[in-house]
């Protein structure tokens, strides 16, 4: 788990995006706080992003979640300027990429960002290996070295032996692993993933999530992962941003959002979650307390479900919580069971 507070890699400020005939003249209305439905009705413009302010942290997985049409794809495409904002700033390591010319923008896309797509977007006329080598080929690098690198990543995503196959000969899950290998071979520090796993079957999706987490343990890339699936978001996210109708409803640590949803929309979103499995002791314990406990010490990062199993369902027990050898708090089973109750019921 992160200990020191991470650096901000990308920060987006006051970002607005309007699709339509004359977006610039619509802007004043937006500053006055018109909402998506109103704007659509009065002028036929689509408000895709409404005053977005978010930070993407270096080396962490930031998940952007929202229902379909909430502006997730539009937002992530602003980070490499596949879509131009109507107004706003996109700062990368402190530089506004809106000031970039064609050349600088291309350099940014070639060297510092990679992308994985929902529909895979593999070149059908190229082999798996050629697809994987897209970034080094675009950069004009030495092919021999690039191939070595590409083969290494293909092996890492378990595609050894399929290098000479064409994408249409592979299953969906395998195709997306090619997409992943292509992004990794680019060696870029930032990886954008637009619903990269949404088109896959549930079992394959789970294994891809595990693969991503494994890779991230070694790579510590800055990953922006888009999903409409809360389970996936909670599994992957270090930082979670929830979008609704183009604006950010809540952002923060996933556990925190789960325990303290700031909005009925999010309450509804989180109401179906298996809280026992997702919530960790760390988020529920009484921090820094030195209460007397009935039983020994447990790790801060295990889930409530595991603790209930350890406690054999006994509601009278209490434990010390330790993290990295230090005691950081205590927890009673009563607190555990209380945390299982949905927020909206707790606060009736």
């Amino acid at each position, binding site marked *: 788990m992160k200990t020191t507070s991470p650096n901000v890699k990308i920060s987006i400020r006051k970002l607005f995006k309007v699709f339509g005939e004359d977006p610039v003249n619509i802007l004043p209305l937006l500053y006055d706080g018109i909402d998506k439905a109103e704007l659509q009705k009065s002028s036929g413009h689509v408000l895709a992003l409404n005053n977005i302010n978010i930070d993407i942290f270096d080396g962490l997985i930031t998940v952007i979640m929202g229902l379909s049409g909430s502006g997730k794809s539009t937002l992530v495409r602003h980070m490499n300027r596949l879509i131009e904002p109507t107004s706003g700033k996109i700062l990368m390591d402190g530089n506004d990429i809106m000031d970039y010319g064609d050349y600088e923008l291309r350099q940014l896309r070639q060297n510092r960002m990679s992308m994985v797509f929902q529909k895979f*977007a593999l*070149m059908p006329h190229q082999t798996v290996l050629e697809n994987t080598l897209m*970034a080094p080929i675009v950069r004009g690098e030495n092919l021999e070295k690039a191939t070595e690198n590409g083969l290494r990543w293909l092996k890492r995503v378990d595609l050894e032996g399929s290098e000479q196959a064409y994408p249409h000969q592979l299953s969906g899950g395998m195709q997306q692993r090619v997409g992943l290998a292509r992004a990794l071979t680019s060696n870029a520090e930032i990886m954008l993933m637009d619903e990269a796993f949404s088109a896959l079957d549930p079992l394959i999706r789970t294994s891809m999530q595990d693969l991503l987490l494994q890779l991230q343990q070694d790579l510590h890339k800055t990953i922006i992962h888009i999903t409409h699936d809360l389970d996936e978001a909670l599994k992957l996210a270090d930082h979670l941003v929830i979008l609704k109708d183009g604006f950010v409803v809540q952002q923060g640590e996933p556990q925190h959002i789960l325990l303290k949803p700031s909005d009925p929309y999010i309450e509804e979103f989180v109401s179906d979650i298996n809280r026992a499995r997702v919530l960790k002791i760390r988020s529920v314990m009484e921090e820094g307390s030195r209460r007397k406990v009935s039983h020994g010490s447990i790790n801060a990062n295990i889930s409530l479900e595991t603790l209930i199993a350890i406690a054999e369902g006994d509601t009278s027990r209490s434990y010390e919580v330790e993290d990295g050898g230090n005691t950081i708090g205590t927890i009673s089973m009563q607190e555990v069971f209380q945390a299982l109750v949905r927020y909206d019921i707790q606060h009736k």
Partner: protein
Amino acid sequence: MLSYENIFDSLGLREWCDESQANSLMSLSQLRGDKIEWWELPFPSLDNLHKACSAIPQTRDLTASLETGFLAVRPSLRLVLDPLTQPLSWALDYTLLFFTTMPWWALVPLILLITQFVTKSSRITFLVAICFVFFLFIDHYTYAIQTLSIIFVCTVLCTLIGIPIGILMSKNDSAQRMITPVLDMLQTLPTFVYLIPLIFLFKITEPKLYGLAIMFYSIVPVIRLTNLGIRLVDKNLIEAADAYGMTARQRLVNVEIPLALPNIMAGVNQTIMMSLAMVVIASLVSAPGLGTLVLDGINNLRLGVGFVAGFGIVVLAVILDRISKTALARIDESRKI
């Protein structure tokens, strides 16, 4: 009384009308003093108005002045167009010379090899072999080779010129808006009609005359289908190309053209078939080949000659179509998504 004479008179234009002819003759109806009922009044065409007022030209003056106009601009047009189109004459001349002087025992196997290479189908190679044996046997081989040479040159040039135009149209909406009506016109004009300005511009013995006629007619599909093919490339793939920072050129060469290739090749197939159709008509303007035999058959009522040559053209059409369609299907096969 109603007549055009009266109308000119009442407008006070009589003097202007008769100016050109000092002692103007009175028109027949005036002489006769005929009374024309209103329903008998003819349409005010140039010829009818001329009768009433000789200052107005007749239709025949119009065509004559067009002709003199054409002839007047001809030298300066030729000054520009001649050097531009001369390579076409050379290409046609030398290709014809090359393929007709090449001995049959070298050229036929070469054609069979190429067929086998692009189609990878021994059935089609066999079919082509049979056809050439047939042409050789009935002494139509040289004519067939002439026709094929012309088609070869025109198709290669149409492809070289048409693909860049198609790419331009796909990248630029206003270019598309401007070029599309021209393509529509080229395709709807009866083929004989645009032989006419070409005959004005070039000597009828110049190969470029029929070369241009064929190309104008047959370049259309390759342009259209290149444009369409590139516009139809999956937007997700274009996005991926952009996301990885491809330049416009890299994207065109590595993504758009390869993915549009099935459509482009379909265009080339149509271009080949349209060249064949036009090369027959172009024998009117001295294109050599099987078409001359058909023309001879029509002009001199030698039906047998015309019939056999016509059959030869059908045979050529079949093998050209088979070869290019099979090559196309092979590309499609390797590109399926």
